[in-house]
């Protein structure tokens, strides 16, 4: 069976599940940010695969993927800034110790 839309979607699902596991289980805040990037990339793969196989002449999925990349860049910048700020205050990036807003 030749490679088709389903193969790309399954690959996207595998990467998304790995990223979700990492987000839930990891304690290092930078690693959690990395896992979020994995999940965003998995979604991008499925968007581009839909664009290639369902509407190959309209490229709607690729345009969505461009916007996802832009939002991911903004999210990474703000996320790293927040992590560095917390590290300055707490001397740690262990998310188990992030109880700053806990009442």
């Amino acid at each position, binding site marked *: 069976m*030749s*490679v*088709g839309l*389903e193969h*790309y*979607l399954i*690959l996207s*699902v*595998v990467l*998304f*599940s*790995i990223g*979700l*596991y*990492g987000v*839930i*289980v*990891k*304690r*290092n*805040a*930078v*690693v959690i*940010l*990395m896992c979020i*990037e*994995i999940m965003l*990339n998995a979604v991008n*793969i499925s968007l*581009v*695969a839909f*664009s*290639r*196989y*369902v*509407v*190959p*002449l309209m*490229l709607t999925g*690729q*345009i969505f*993927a*461009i*916007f996802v*990349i*832009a*939002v991911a*860049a*903004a999210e990474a*910048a*703000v996320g*790293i*800034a*927040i992590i*560095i*700020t917390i*590290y300055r205050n707490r001397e740690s*990036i*262990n*998310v188990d110790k992030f109880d700053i807003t806990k009442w």
Partner: protein
Amino acid sequence: MFDIVFWVLAIVSICAALAVILLRDVFRAALSLVLLFLTIAGIYISLHADFLAVVQILVYVGAISILIIVGIMLTRDVHYGNPSGKLRIPALVVGILLFIVLAYSVVNTIWVISPQPPLEPTTATLGSKLFSQGGYLLTVEITAVLLLTAILGAIVLIRDK
């Protein structure tokens, strides 16, 4: 030939993603994340998305990975490693359940595959779609404002008092 390329890229990308969550060294995890971004650029090329592959290499491999590596170096918890929390079993269950549900729905859906050949090169069409009348011009403007806000927010957060 195309199938072999896809399978190689898929296996390498899944191994790189597993390495991100399994390696004990945070820095090595970041490097395998770079490998994952590169293989995803290859997957875009196999999907005839040439412009997006270049954007992936420029933005992810060039910018975001550098940002993450700088973040690792500025927060020197490297000796602390890349440990897992207490939620390992529930997270494994949630991940596998999500995979089963999504894979089941992907396999059992009848997709309407278009018989037309893919468009290439895509750059000119993407540009005219993004910036033309009735296109996505407003969204492009909003994205620019979002990026500006993110940069200002990051500067305000990082700045010394």
